[in-house]
């Protein structure tokens, strides 16, 4: 039995942050109903964010919205809004990621929804919070990475600020709102009380940096200095980073430099007997290592490192990863079917419950695919439909 099987979520959110949160809730058993504009729906269906398409919609939309239903409603149309309010009476959770002020103008503020359904968990994601000077800025991933200081942590010191190549602000804000929703659902389960919960992408990205920015706060506001050679983490000593070998790349995590020199027969490292130098002289040490590792292939070095129990791994791309037995053993791939009969390969929920991986076979919905079925199920006895 999946843990959220009796939970109904009305999801008014678009793009990635909100929809990634409800994807997780759906995979853990919740019924997730996307409330979409009749014209175009979730902007992610149409916004040309990848040049790989499935059924005329981006692969990304299919990845984010599998295992959900779609209900088309024009919130500016009084009849549609009345139906939405009837659905909200029967829902456990409502989520949106409109910019501050929009949901209020649409007539679905927390006060209004709470009056309809006092036990509801009302969840919101914003870019920069609902008050403050930046509240109206667009909550877009690259822009959040850029204002938050995050781009000064990745890549080498002589390179420009470098964004992370995955929409990390969206995904973390989605993870945090799903946690807030779940905590509020727990409170509802034991007390019957509803809650309003909110996160912003900026607060989520600041939280993501909490280990490092806490150093900054308490150490005289010194900015991070990325390593000039093979930077892995601005705050870590040699050899932490990725190294080119004669064939392939090798990742080396933290460890004793002298011991590493012995394992790899890199005599230049034996001089660094003072552990404090492993941070202050990290670029020099890493340069010696880089010069040495390029002379043989990654498999050769990895054999020596693993035999000695030193933390190292080969660097894979997706082809190398997906061909490996280690990848196959975790059974991460999932096939879902759209109602048009198309089968799509994607990844499954990463959480295992009671020894079982969580699988679902339902693909992303067509726009408005479930409107009639939802009307019949939830609104059938109501005069609104007469």
């Amino acid at each position, binding site marked *: *039995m999946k*843990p*959220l099987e009796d939970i109904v979520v009305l999801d008014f959110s678009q793009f*990635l942050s909100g929809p990634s949160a409800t994807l*997780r809730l759906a995979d853990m058993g919740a019924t997730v109903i996307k409330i979409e504009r009749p014209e175009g729906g979730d902007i992610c269906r149409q916004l040309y964010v*990848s*040049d790989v398409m*499935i059924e005329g919609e981006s*692969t990304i939309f299919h990845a*984010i919205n599998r295992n959900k239903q779609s209900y088309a409603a024009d919130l500016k149309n009084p009849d549609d809004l009345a139906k939405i309010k009837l659905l909200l009476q029967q829902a456990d959770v409502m989520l949106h990621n409109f910019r501050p002020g929009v949901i209020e103008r649409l007539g679905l503020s927390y006060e209004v929804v709470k009056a309809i359904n006092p036990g509801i968990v009302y969840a919101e994601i914003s870019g920069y919070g609902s008050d403050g*000077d930046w509240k109206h800025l*667009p909550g877009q*991933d*690259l*822009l959040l990475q*850029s*204002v938050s*200081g995050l781009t*000064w*942590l*990745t890549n080498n010191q002589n*390179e420009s600020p470098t*964004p*992370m190549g*995955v929409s*990390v602000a969206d995904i*973390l804000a989605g*993870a*945090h709102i799903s*946690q807030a929703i779940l905590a509020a659902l*727990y409170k509802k389960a*034991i007390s019957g009380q509803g809650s309003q919960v909110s996160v912003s992408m900026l*607060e989520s990205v600041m939280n993501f*940096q909490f*280990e*490092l920015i*806490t150093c900054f*706060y*308490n*150490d005289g*506001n010194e900015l*991070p200095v990325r390593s000039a050679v093979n*930077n*892995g*983490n601005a*705050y*870590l000593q040699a050899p932490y980073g*990725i190294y080119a070998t004669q064939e392939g*790349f090798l*990742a080396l*995590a933290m460890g004793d430099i002298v011991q590493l020199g012995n394992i790899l027969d890199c005599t230049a490292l034996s001089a660094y007997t003072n552990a404090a130098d492993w941070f202050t002289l990290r670029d020099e040490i890493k340069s010696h290592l880089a010069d040495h590792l390029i002379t043989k292939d990654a498999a050769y070095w990895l054999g020596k490192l693993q035999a000695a129990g030193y933390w190292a*791994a*080969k*660097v894979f791309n*997706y082809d190398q990863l997906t061909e490996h037995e*280690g990848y196959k*053993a*975790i059974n991460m791939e999932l096939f879902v079917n759209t109602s048009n009969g198309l089968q799509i390969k994607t*990844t499954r929920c990463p959480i295992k419950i009671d*020894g079982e991986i969580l699988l679902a076979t339902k693909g992303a919905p067509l726009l408005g695919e479930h409107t009639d079925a939802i009307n019949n199920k939830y609104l059938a006895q109501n005069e609104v439909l007469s």
Partner: protein
Amino acid sequence: MELPLKGIIVLEFCQYLSGPSAGLRLADLGARVIKIERPEIGEAGRSLSIKNLWVGSDSLLFHTINRNKESYTANLKNAEELAAIKQLIKHAHIITHNFRPGVMEKSGLGYEAVKAINPGIIYAEVSGYGKNGPWKDLPGQDLLIQAISGLTYTTGNANQSPIPFGISIADMICGEHLVQGILASLIRKAKKGVGAHIEVSLLESLLDFQFELLTTYFASNKQPERSLINNGNPLLSAPYGIYQTKDGYIAIAMVNLLQLAEAIESDALAKAAVKNPFEYRDDIKQICADHLLTNTSQHWLNKLHAIDLWAIEVLDWQKLTTLPAYQQLQIEQVIAIDEQQKIITTRCPIRINGERLLSNKSAPLLGADTEKIKQEFQIA
């Protein structure tokens, strides 16, 4: 406000970041989190410092991750102390651990053993690579998981080596997933009275993190390609990325190229804007890069914002933290270590009923709460 997890007791048998970051979130949501630590040494994170920053005998890093928790010391190899832990388990709702597969079982605290003591327990574990397959005994270390998972080919430019994320993304994201699994199980427990066994791994979490990229890879059979110029996200077309200006850097997200050309007054870009922004991504981005170097960040942002194009100045922490917009968020909180010493750290990113979740309780000294907890639960 009564926090949602008030009354929930968590026993945290975790070290470093993945498990403890999950415990921190549960604590901020109202749970009572008790770290179970080895006598004398304690959690390994206590002695792991960055920038050689310490708070008394423990690292600042440990204080960052373990504020708002208690500490109970026990040697799990000592029969009496193990028996005391089993007494404590009877009162707990949640157990978390991030030992390598098999270690908790050897200590007599595997899921089956714990379930026999407390059938309603939510037992949540983190591993590096799951419990099956050829990788199961490899060290679950963040950089190594990034390397194996393909993630390092998403970041940096196409002519660079694979570039890791400069934050422990695998640990962090796996901690988030652990919290999700635990909270969903708590809801089920409240309704049905049943416990749960939750398992996450750093590798599965990092693959889930890349779900958009992997789904696109499966559909196209093509590796994601970083752009050669100012790569922002391998899935996205020109101009998405960070651009150097005369006096700094600006980020430009998804924008219409013709509008961009008009805003920044670039004839070359206006000509190139008719081309496919995926296929000619690097050519178009090179034109933008050359042009944007000719004036200041503020000059360009004024022009871009005048027509609502998605762009922003790239900030570092010094600049960010002096801005009113940052200060209004109140993301910082002060933790009093003792009468002399205070530290500043971040708070929980979640707000409930409009309120920020703050806690000024500092990380515990090793074993600080052992006696109190023994008395409270009448453990011999």
